[in-house]
């Protein structure tokens, strides 16, 4: 029903906010900046501590918990890189392949599903939409065991199929919802014009909706990448062969909660495994903010 509401243009919210803010006095502004900077420093401290610890000899990490290393060493990186007998680059590549395929799968399937919910009319649409939204609230652990049994019975354990194939079936309800919201904001007259020019439903999607959806697609792509890259439980259950480990599973191999954990190498490899996320975020930041500002998820 909501899809049939009159279309509206994207409101220039940013301009509306600019007025009152510019009247804020200088000292107050300074103070606000100071608060934000302090809060930021507190938030980034654990990250800086991890990087600093990666550059310290292992014995110094907890004995000298300050940020600046007394002795500077790259040793943690070299021991960590080969700690599992397989170079860590393999795990990064594995993680990257899974993340890349997941991004493609999510963009493809979620955008199609979102288009159907936002623009097409079909029976039980409202019920199906509500069901789809309800799956957001379903904890992952509920479906864990049945899912494992399913993939086990078709002999997909120890392969990447259980991790990437579902992404092609639009299982991430959050992204569908996000894209539906975005598509609802696009003027319907564009669809109508394309239909007059001879486009079918798929043509409208492909030629009109998809190109206009780029901000929403960017958000979905970035979040999919980050979540897949960080995913621990999925690869933990399905991947047991060491050569197929993803980065988080490989990092776990440094941990020995019943004995002595190799903190130094673990911090070193954790630092490296954060780099791709950092880079993705750095380059995609603009799209991310644009996407969030225009999808009604403020």
């Amino acid at each position, binding site marked *: 029903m909501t899809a049939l509401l009159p279309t509206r243009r994207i409101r220039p919210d940013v301009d509306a906010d600019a007025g009152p803010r510019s009247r804020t006095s200088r000292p107050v502004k300074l103070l606000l900046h100071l608060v934000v900077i302090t809060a930021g420093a507190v938030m980034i401290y654990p990250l800086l501590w991890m990087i600093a610890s990666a550059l310290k000899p*292992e*014995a110094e*990490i*907890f*004995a000298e918990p300050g940020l600046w290393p007394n002795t500077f060493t790259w040793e943690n990186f070299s021991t960590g890189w080969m*700690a*599992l*007998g397989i170079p860590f680059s393999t795990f990064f*590549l*594995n993680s990257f*392949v*899974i993340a*890349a*395929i997941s991004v*493609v799968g999510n963009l*493809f399937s979620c955008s199609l599903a979102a288009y159907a919910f936002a623009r097409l009319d079909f029976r039980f649409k409202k019920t199906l939409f509500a069901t789809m939204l309800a799956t957001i609230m379903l904890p992952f652990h509920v479906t*864990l*065991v049945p899912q*494992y*049994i399913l993939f*086990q019975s078709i*002999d*997909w*354990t*120890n*392969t*990447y*199929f259980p991790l*990437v194939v579902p992404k092609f079936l639009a299982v991430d309800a959050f992204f569908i919802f996000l894209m539906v919201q975005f598509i609802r904001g696009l003027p319907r007259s564009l669809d109508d014009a394309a239909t007059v020019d001879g486009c079918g439903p798929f043509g409208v999607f*492909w030629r009109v909706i*998809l*190109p*206009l959806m*780029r901000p929403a697609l960017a958000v979905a792509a970035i979040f999919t990448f980050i979540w897949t890259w960080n995913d*621990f*439980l999925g690869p*933990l*259950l399905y*991947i*047991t*062969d*060491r*050569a*197929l480990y993803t980065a988080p*599973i490989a990092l*776990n*191999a*440094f*941990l*020995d*909660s*019943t*004995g*002595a*954990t*190799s*903190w130094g190498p673990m911090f070193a490899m954790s630092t490296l495994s954060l780099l791709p996320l950092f880079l993705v975020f750095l380059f995609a930041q603009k799209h991310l903010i644009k996407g969030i500002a225009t999808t009604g998820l403020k």
Partner: protein
Amino acid sequence: MTSSFSRRSFLGLSAAGAMFGISSCAGFSGGGGGNSDGDRSGGSASLDVSWWGDASRAALYDEALDLFGETHSDVTITSQFADLDPYLERLATTAAAGSLPDVLWMRDTHIGRYAAAGSLLDLSPYLDEVIGTSALGDAGVASGTVGDGVFALPTHYVGQAILTNDDLLAAKGIDPNGLVTWTDLADAATASADGAAGIWGLQDATLDTTHRHLEAFIRQSGGELFTEGGGLGADPALLEEWFEYWKSLRDAGVVPPADTTTEANATGWSGDLLTVGKSTIRLASTNHFKIVQDLTDAKIGLHSVPAAAGSTNDWWFFPPILLSVAAETGSPDAAAALMDFFINDTDAAAITRLNQGAPSSAAVRESLIPLLNEEETAFVDQISIEMEYPSRPFPIRPEGAEQFNSALTRTGEEIAYNQRSVSEAVATLVSEAHGYLPEA
């Protein structure tokens, strides 16, 4: 709005992504190694072996598995590992799916549950036929016995101990060998605590994640933590006495306050107060001795757990590190042979050494001695000596034992953070335990 996101480039991108992934990654080769459905043509067997731990343990156990492969060329072996918590999570999921690894290391805290659920193979037919148990003794077999079946056997034992920083104790003129009773321990801790130097006398055992020393304390009084039927066996008065003991030391500034302990515990052994020279005594497992000694230059001492005045003399117990076979394994004979290898083979032990504790077989322990350094010998001797003492049976952990274990930690925290009095906290612990432990 023109778009560079054309259909051609989109299709090209997805195709390239898929091709790249599938061609370069073994992860898409299908089938997967390891599980019970592996290639078994020509009567050969395949075993998937699983343990908890880190990459360094994996390197040792893979080497041992290679050795087993040399004499069992018909057996294809794959292995998997993860740190303890993820390991248990994976175990729970694969057990629910009926696809446990063929041979798996099992916690003594979980054996009761997995055996009762029918996930593990009853090893009784293999005992003494394939798996030699003569060096394990009746107690060894008993530690894996659930109901009428034997579902696991110990490969290693760990024990309870106290670790001392002998340098700090010597500076205060305290003899670490004199810590015979819990009162001795409290006195030595009080005398060695040095607030000005930032040194604590004793570390808080009530905030640990396991509570074996409390169990020792209860067994010393003649009681048991759990009854034969799996119910709560501990006398509430005794639980109060235990928490009161630690509370008074904490209040006196001998044991660090709760936040100091919590912070130190989060860093594991590398940041442990004993390791970094900020405490003189702590309770630990016997096998932690070598870990701590390797991490510090100070002289660390290893001693038996103190006993209560008027203690029973048969309270000694050794939590086993267990090895099990999955009920649904396709190669039970090979799995049993591998179990025997890990329990009785001295060449395997020469590779894995003391990585998981002291070997359960007295013969294997004996064979290792010439290979060990001073600390390792001290550790093995300590366990061997204590195992000579009389010890009454150690009941199998009932279902709900893990929950009770976490409840003990929570109770310790409530008391340490002064949220509740000892008697209140213990009363809650006991009344809640009656809810999830069977009545017996």
